């Protein structure tokens, strides 16, 4: 499959999962915890797909400081940090996932609950910036892989069907 298409599909899944996870009232606590775990796995795939870019920019970070890719890198790093904070605190205050694995944590400070909310809110903000910095790519590929195929589908349907014509010999 085309790498752009793969990236777009993974990103759409990530975005949808993120919206669901950041609205725990929609799913209830149990589903919120399990979908969050699935989101972590999807983020791992997302990171894996962009690993070469990450390594390249990390190695060149201090060579040319003021460049869009550096800003991108910085936002991505902050986003990953906030997401890690939300994940760790989420695991520590988890009630269903840990119980499923037979783990019960006692005396977890309330600070983790506070940290979970703050990092989750920060993640939404950083997700917005992350999307905005890739806006052109998103629009271009959405048009290419969703709008254009739909347009072509309708064009094909509107075209008159070719019917066999019998030609009589004189």
């Amino acid at each position: 499959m085309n790498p752009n298409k793969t990236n777009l599909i993974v990103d759409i899944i990530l975005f949808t999962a993120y919206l669901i996870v950041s609205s725990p009232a929609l799913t209830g606590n149990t589903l919120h915890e399990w979908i969050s775990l699935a989101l972590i796995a999807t983020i791992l795939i997302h990171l894996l797909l962009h690993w070469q870019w990450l390594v390249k920019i990390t190695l060149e970070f201090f060579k040319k400081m003021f460049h869009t890719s550096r800003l991108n890198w910085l936002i991505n790093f902050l986003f990953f940090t906030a997401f890690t904070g939300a994940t760790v605190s989420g695991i520590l205050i988890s009630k269903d996932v840990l119980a499923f694995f037979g783990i019960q944590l006692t005396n977890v400070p309330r600070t983790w609950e506070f940290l979970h909310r703050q990092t989750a809110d920060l993640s939404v903000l950083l997700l917005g910036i992350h999307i905005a910095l890739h806006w052109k790519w998103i629009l271009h590929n959405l048009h290419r892989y969703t709008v254009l195929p739909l347009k072509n589908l309708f064009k094909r349907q509107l075209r008159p069907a070719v019917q066999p014509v019998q030609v009589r010999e004189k």
Partner: protein
Amino acid sequence: MKNLPKILMTFAAIAGIFALITFGFVWAVDNTQWFDAGAEGGFGNRERRGIPQETGSAAFPEGFRPERGEHHEEASITRGLGQVLGNLIKLTIIIGVIVLLQYGFSRLPRRRTNIPATP
């Protein structure tokens, strides 16, 4: 299969960064008081607002006091869709502002580089 060692190494690198950041958070919670004020004072602690006090006339009846955050554990389509809509509005505003800023910067006249040399 040829890429498997490379993928495993990448996973290990991601896990390493994850572990470092986690260590940072755990250290900050255990050894600093950066987050204590917020956790105790209710700053950003939306779930605790509106919960009646534990004693006195406004206390919960016996057996009905919710565990912390319990009133957010049950799913509610209305509240959930409200949260989704709220997040979508937040994201739209952020994306809109940044895309407009980028557009504005791209319209700025570029610095001229072909300055003729003085005779």
